């Protein structure tokens, strides 16, 4: 075995996992983007993020018929539906103590539970079929290996999303308002901008991002009873690991998660169940320790 594995073959089996790590990491970034915005940037803990993603996913399953037009339609409908759900969520959040994460968690978790079971009731307990355009459905040759073509889509989508989000948050007035509202919503109000409107905007945008991710991600993390939980957990991990709101950090965190779940699994299959959480705890603890040291914690 060892003799066979020597030479170029030793790395060859890991080419595809490594590539897949990138693609999967970027998919995770796309899936998490809505939460990056809501929680990372605007500091609204939206535990219904996974459900918003699932709305996109179910829309894709319902609308897609294998044609390009249906993909465009699904994107439009999914984005609108999830954004509308985001607005609803904002409406529910308005009268309650804002800025208090635990109350937000209670409310959005409730919405996620209820919404999730409504989705399943509406679309049935089975995972629906998702038909992507034939051109994307096949596989391509990469470095002598066959690789699912659709996954490469995310390299483009994620780059565009990351750049777009960064520019919006850093460079536009809207982005500044959102960040300002995190610091002091009352003072934002004193500038003549309603913090409620900002919150609605944030959740609508977060919903739209999640909806788009749900449509695009449907062929990979497809809609189903567990989708919302899976996506929420991965997104939370990515957002927190990425340093809450830093776009570069989040992208790196997503890639790290991707590689851990692919290359890490390929290298250390027996440790697979521990990899994700052990790595997360270690990274967060090291970072927290770094912060604590900066505070001169002696």
């Amino acid at each position: 075995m060892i003799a066979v594995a020597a030479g170029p073959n030793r790395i060859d089996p890991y080419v595809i996992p490594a590539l897949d790590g990138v693609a999967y990491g970027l998919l995770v970034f796309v899936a998490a983007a809505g939460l990056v915005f809501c929680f990372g940037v605007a500091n609204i803990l939206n535990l219904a993020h996974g459900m918003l993603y699932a709305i996109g996913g179910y829309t894709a399953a319902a609308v897609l018929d294998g044609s390009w037009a249906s993909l465009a339609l699904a994107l439009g409908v999914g984005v609108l539906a999830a954004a509308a759900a985001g607005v609803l969520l904002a409406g529910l959040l308005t009268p309650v103590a804002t800025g208090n994460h635990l109350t937000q968690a209670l409310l959005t978790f409730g919405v996620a539970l209820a919404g999730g079971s409504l989705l399943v009731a509406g679309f049935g307990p089975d995972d629906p079929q998702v038909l992507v355009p034939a051109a994307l459905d096949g596989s391509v040759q990469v470095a002598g290996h066959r690789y699912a073509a659709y996954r490469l889509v995310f390299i483009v989508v994620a780059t565009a999303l990351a750049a777009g989000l960064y520019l919006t948050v850093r460079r536009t007035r809207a982005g500044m308002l959102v960040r300002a509202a995190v610091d002091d919503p009352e003072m934002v109000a004193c500038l003549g901008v309603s913090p409620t409107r900002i919150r609605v905007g944030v959740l609508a945008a977060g919903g739209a991002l999640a909806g788009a991710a749900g449509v695009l991600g449907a062929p990979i993390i497809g809609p189903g009873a567990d989708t919302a939980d899976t996506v929420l957990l991965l997104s939370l991990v990515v957002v927190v690991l990425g340093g809450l709101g830093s776009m570069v950090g989040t992208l790196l965190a997503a890639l790290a998660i991707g590689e851990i779940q692919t290359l890490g699994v390929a290298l250390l299959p027996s440790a697979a169940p521990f990899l994700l959480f052990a790595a997360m705890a270690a990274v967060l603890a090291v970072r927290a320790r770094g912060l604590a040291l900066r505070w001169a914690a002696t």
Partner: protein
Amino acid sequence: ADEPGTTGGGSIKIGLLASLSGTYQSVGKEIRDGFELYLDTHDGKLGGRQVDLVVADEGNGAATAVPAATKLLKQDRVAALTGIVGGGSVAGVYPLLQETKVPLVGSNGRPEIKDVSRVWHTSYLSDEPGAAIAQHVRDNVKGSVYAIGPDYQGGWDELRGFTEAFAKAGGTLANPDGKTTFTPFPATTNFTPYFARIKASGAQAVYTFYAGSAAVDFVKQYAQSEIKDIPLYAAGFLTEGGVLNAQGEAARDIFSVLNYSPDLDNAENRGFVAAWKAKHDGSPTTYALASYDAAAVLDRAIGAAGDDPTPEAINAQIGKLGQIASPRGAWQFSTVTHSPVQKWYLRQVRQDGRALSNTVVGDLATIGR
């Protein structure tokens, strides 16, 4: 009328516990529908008594199953319990069965249990599908076989059944360390890194067991991966029921082993499938079938228990049933394991009209002690 299980006027209370929410909710719903189908086709009666069916939700596992079962057993005081998707849930409910002395006629998972005196299963033991197909795989695959499955009790049992029988038949596993590869469950949604390992192992075929969403992910990704041309053998759950729909083309040609297929040609099955199709879209699954059979078992046992169908009496009668006619073909309870001695079928996913379906392509072993 305070007697457990009976509610006056000759009716009887039966408790059905199944996952109506959570990961395996589609399985749970099949189980509920299968049982209800039997009641509907038998005037709502079991053993001549009007049935008061109390349904409770098992949720995702023992944590929710135990309190729900406690309610059925201690508050509703059902005469018998049926259903239960997860083996872990059965393990959790087991102490309650011992305490309340109510029999369980389970219709899906079964954990390792030492004393089965009150536990019956109309489904199968988790290691049986693998054991049933091992010889066939050995005979038809020239080379080693890669075994992979989900990392939980159900997965361990299913794969152990295969690997043990396969080794006994003289087959070799392609897995580098000779042991099955287990993937975190239900956390794994991306199987690509495992496919790379399978490719590198030089396996000539793959044997696996997944169910639910994991089955959809596995099959879809398999079809796009670099090992898509390696034959895939599986426990039948991989392509059973709703998941086949979601997998679509990706599932074509997969071989699987199961104790049932809707295209079995016998009178019971024709009636069962027709009755099912009258009420539901699509064909019945093995889950629904097992639950339907659980109702049949209870029907006969309650009937035989006479005027006073106490839980104890029902339990005693189940042990004396003998052959049970069923859509899967006749079967009977093993006296050792209290699970069916039954025939297993080899199926392949093939075109059936406009849709794909599991078509029986051969008989495999009859298993059970």
